[in-house]
């Protein structure tokens, strides 16, 4: 059998066995990335909407910086969080290094700019469309923030999925601040890196197949949710 087929066999074996180590890794991956997405949404959605609706000096500079931060290298984020959380760093006393919390913080830093920048785009477009209408109803930018965020919820769901994709796929940051510790901070991506370094390419790709499958299921769920809850005016 060709090398490229063995990963699928490996993935099926992993899933079929319901390998308890694998389940633990999958649960931690999902838990960490979903938490990071929710926390990023709490900050990123209002931030993006505010940037779209308020005019202030330096706004363009802030937008350029925000857009650039979408491409933050995970390793740099990981290193920054490491230096903050290290026992020799300013937040060392909290003892958070090599915990899931540290991984959530790193992913949160990584995806908040993505969610904020994409929200900015969505809300800006909505404001262009409905701004006048809202203003005529006496709604200033502040009151328009929740209205437009709610109105753009279907587009913003895609924004959150983009953030989730970035969070669950990155390896550089969680490797540094999590340490890839078995049964404590090992997630899908760091175990793929580990198996690759052991030269077990089939198992590494098998884990990759599992990760992609998970990602597809989450996106499919979100898509169905969107389809069924979207108001129907037919």
């Amino acid at each position, binding site marked *: 059998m060709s090398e490229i087929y063995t990963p699928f066999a490996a993935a099926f074996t992993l899933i079929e066995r319901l390998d308890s180590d694998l389940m633990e890794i999958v649960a931690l991956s999902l838990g960490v990335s979903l938490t990071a997405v929710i926390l990023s949404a709490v900050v990123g959605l209002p931030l993006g909407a505010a940037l779209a609706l308020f005019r202030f000096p330096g706004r363009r500079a802030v937008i350029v910086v925000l857009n650039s931060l979408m491409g933050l290298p995970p390793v740099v984020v990981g290193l920054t969080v490491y230096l903050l959380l290290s026992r020799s760093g300013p937040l060392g006393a909290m003892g958070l290094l090599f915990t899931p919390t540290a991984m959530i913080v790193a992913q949160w830093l990584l995806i908040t700019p993505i969610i904020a920048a994409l929200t900015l785009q969505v809300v800006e477009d909505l404001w262009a469309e409905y701004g006048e209408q809202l203003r005529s109803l006496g709604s200033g930018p502040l009151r328009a923030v929740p209205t437009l965020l709610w109105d753009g919820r279907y587009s913003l769901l895609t924004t959150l999925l983009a953030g989730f994709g970035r969070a669950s796929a990155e390896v550089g940051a969680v490797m540094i601040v999590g340490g890839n510790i*078995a049964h404590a901070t090992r997630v899908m991506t760091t175990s793929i890196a580990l198996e690759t370094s052991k030269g077990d390419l089939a198992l590494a790709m098998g884990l990759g197949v599992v990760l992609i499958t998970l990602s597809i299921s989450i996106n499919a769920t979100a898509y169905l949710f969107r389809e069924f809850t*979207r108001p129907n005016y037919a």
Partner: protein
Amino acid sequence: MVGAGTDPAGGDRAVPAAAGHGFVWPREWWPRERWARERWARAALILCLHLLAAAPLEAGERFLTLASTTSTENSGLFAHILPLFEADTGIAVRVVARGTGQALRLARNGDADVVLVHDRESELAFQREGWGVERREVMYNDFVLLGPSADAAGIRGKPIAQALRLIFNAGARFVSRADESGTHKAEIRLWRAAGLQTPVGSEWYLETGSGMGATLNIASAMNAYALADRATWLAFQNKGQLDILVQGDPVLINPYGIMLVNPQRHPHVKAEEGRALIAWLTSARGRKAIAQFKVAGQQLFHPYEP
């Protein structure tokens, strides 16, 4: 997305909530009855908050953090011996596997309680500078020089110094860790012992800056020569055309030492747990566990007898 004008009939998207009637945003945005109805949303939120808070809470479990090298982790040694240690003492060991240089850096920053590495020179320096205490030699294995079985430089079975000179003169492709790891430092010493400059900058000398596994993957793909520790090599599964060409020279011995991070420098260090690990690894029981670890029927680490 927002398709103004794409659907003149009004689109399939709701007109902003505020447009039809008076603006009462909190109710429109997330009505209370809906919040009550959507229990799953609350459940998910609570789960996430729980996870966020879980890390500090689980500190109740007794554990220590061990900074160690990729060879001990990747070969499966820790997976074999650490459960035995935990069964004996109730202390879980969390292993962060990095190169020796990085592991010592973590320990110096106070991010590990115990450090188990394989570069005697930097271990002694670490101890001299007061960062590590109570150093013990635990075990050894050996380095092997790997290369393509075709062996263009003709080094098979030669002494290590001569083999390196042959590679150097032939300009045969050599892959180096170049990451301040124990293996990298051993490699630099071996070039020096062969009377050669480390060939940094030569076209045939590739510095990967990566771990042992990543470096072996590159060597395997390029059919290049490389220095590796025997444990990682035996457990490695992507050997390709590579083969052990030089081994058994006494200068290839690779000793592992363990140290407690100085609790006087870093008061949070788990000294009691750390001392328990050091004592256990060097005890008769620990030595037996190390000696019993085998890959493909071969013993990978040899404990030092006291």
